[in-house]
């Protein structure tokens, strides 16, 4: 593996679900990543600022409370505008309102510019495996 990669992570919008965030933070560190964890209630701007400041390799957005689809709109464009063109963008959690077929949800979020979309019940290991693949090609 190459040098330590840097991740910016947090829970977007007015969302206060903190448990998954704290566990992911711990798991990503344990897995050898450099993690900037912004905690809960993070705005798009805060992610982007932190990513620029830390020269991050990826932004990991969590949304649990149901407003994820609203909160994530335009995120990729904002990244592009801020000079983060092509930065790896993940989103995960209970990202829509209600129980919906995951395939459709995934499609919508991919169309919004997210590289990977993770549904309810995703384990930290799955996230780590994807990051290793996308960041180290492993």
């Amino acid at each position, binding site marked *: 593996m190459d040098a330590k990669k840097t991740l910016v992570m947090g829970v977007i919008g*007015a*969302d*206060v*679900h*903190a*448990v998954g965030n*704290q*566990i992911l933070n*711990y798991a990503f560190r344990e897995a050898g990543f450099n993690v900037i964890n912004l*905690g*809960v*209630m993070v705005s798009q701007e805060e992610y982007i600022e932190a990513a620029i400041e830390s020269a991050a390799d990826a932004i990991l957005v969590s949304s649990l*409370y*149901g*407003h994820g689809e*609203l909160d994530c709109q335009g995120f990729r464009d904002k990244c592009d505008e801020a000079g983060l063109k092509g930065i790896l963008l993940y989103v995960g959690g*209970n990202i*829509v*309102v*209600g*129980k*919906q077929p995951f395939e459709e949800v995934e499609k919508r979020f991919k169309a919004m510019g997210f590289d990977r979309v993770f549904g*309810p*019940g995703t*384990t930290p290991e799955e996230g780590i495996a994807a990051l290793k693949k996308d960041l180290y090609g492993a």
Partner: protein
Amino acid sequence: MQLQNKKWTEEAFLAERQNVLASWPTGKGVDLDEAIEYQRGIAPEKRFQSKLDNAVKREVTLIQPRAGVPLIEAHIELLRYLENEGEADLLPTTIDAYTRLNRYEDAEHGIKESMASGKAMLNGFPAVNHGVEGCRMVTSSVASPVQVRHGTPDARLLAEITLAGGFTSFEGGGISYNIPYAKNVPMEHTLLTWQYVDRLTGYYEEKGISINREPFGPLTGTLVPPCVSNSIAIIEALVAAEQGVRSVTVGYGQCGNLVQDVAAIRALEQQTKEYLDRFGYKDCNVSTVLHQWMGGFPQDEAKAFAVICWGSAAAALAKATKVIVKTPHEAMGVPTKEANAAGLRATKQIISMLADQKMVEDTVLAAEIDIIKRETRCILEKTLELGNGDIAVGTVRAFEAGVIDVPFAPSRINAGKIMPARDDQGAVRFLDTGMLPFTEDIKAFHREKIAERAKNEGREVSFQMSIDDIYAISKSCLVGRPKK
């Protein structure tokens, strides 16, 4: 205003009211005298307080869902469905996440979008925006009492509008709607805003209108040790009673070990009364609520039913006054009304089958009640000491000192030094007691309990245990055992 645990003078309260009501146009719709007369017209069977008091007397457990959608008609339809198809005894109105943050503009936008698209674009009912009349349409359209359930650090305007709107119970408190629901709101601030809510409730009470208040028991819903949530519930009960509240429902989120859950509810009821008595609030009516498992749920609906039923059994055997019900969709998203009603019916079946059964305080249960009470007493006495006898002031300092500490909370004003984990029987214990003011024997008790588990699992005591426990129920277990 300087925080202290002292009933606000009527002048101070009425002065503050002007600011509160001015914070959004619908505030003007509240006429307190008219509201009191309106509330006086609500029949006893549609009032939380009388339905709860009656349940306490008969030792039965009532069932209540969570539910809220943005538009009035749809919300009424939803509540009626839960009452008729779900056999709910008590109804909720869950408030959307924007209103919880006083972002009424955003809520207004959400209402318009919901109307335009015909879909729910908010995750709850924006009661402030709908105003007094909108609320009255809701509360007068159903047969059961309706409560406001939310998670709002500053719920003053929400309380004004909903109480005038015919709701007869209001959830929340200065601690329980801050620490799990906010990132950076000072404790003084929420204790003050919630004193306002309690003072308003007390004002109704003075006029003969009993409004029920319910501290939010489960907090972060994730491995919260009973002494932590019980301490907070008791503090919020004391603070509310000081402002004149006379009907309090103290709450607890199921942990999963039956003996511990029953013990927690019994200890909570007994100690709430004990502390209320001690501080002279002898005419305050106390009831209890058990929340079915508040942490991560299994995705499979059959398994989710099992979690729901186990919570119902705990509530019934503990003789909690009411139980807050989850749905088979819990792990996936906001439930459909059908899923919500299914959770209610499963709960009703368990509650009814167990109505005549009760756990007797034999040695094991008695010992568990005893340990919870001793822990809770440590926290409360230290908090009082920190406040020089003032529980509100003490609370602010207790959070600073980590004397009260909630696990996995998003709030930065929470110390976050304790770490819970389950023992070998699945009871929630402390892996790390942080700065909790426990006696040495209590600390030793927890060390031994966790060590016993570690030994049986053949691993070292570590944070990994807590992590495994967080996932356990969603993976079918209570204790997160290491993989073989």
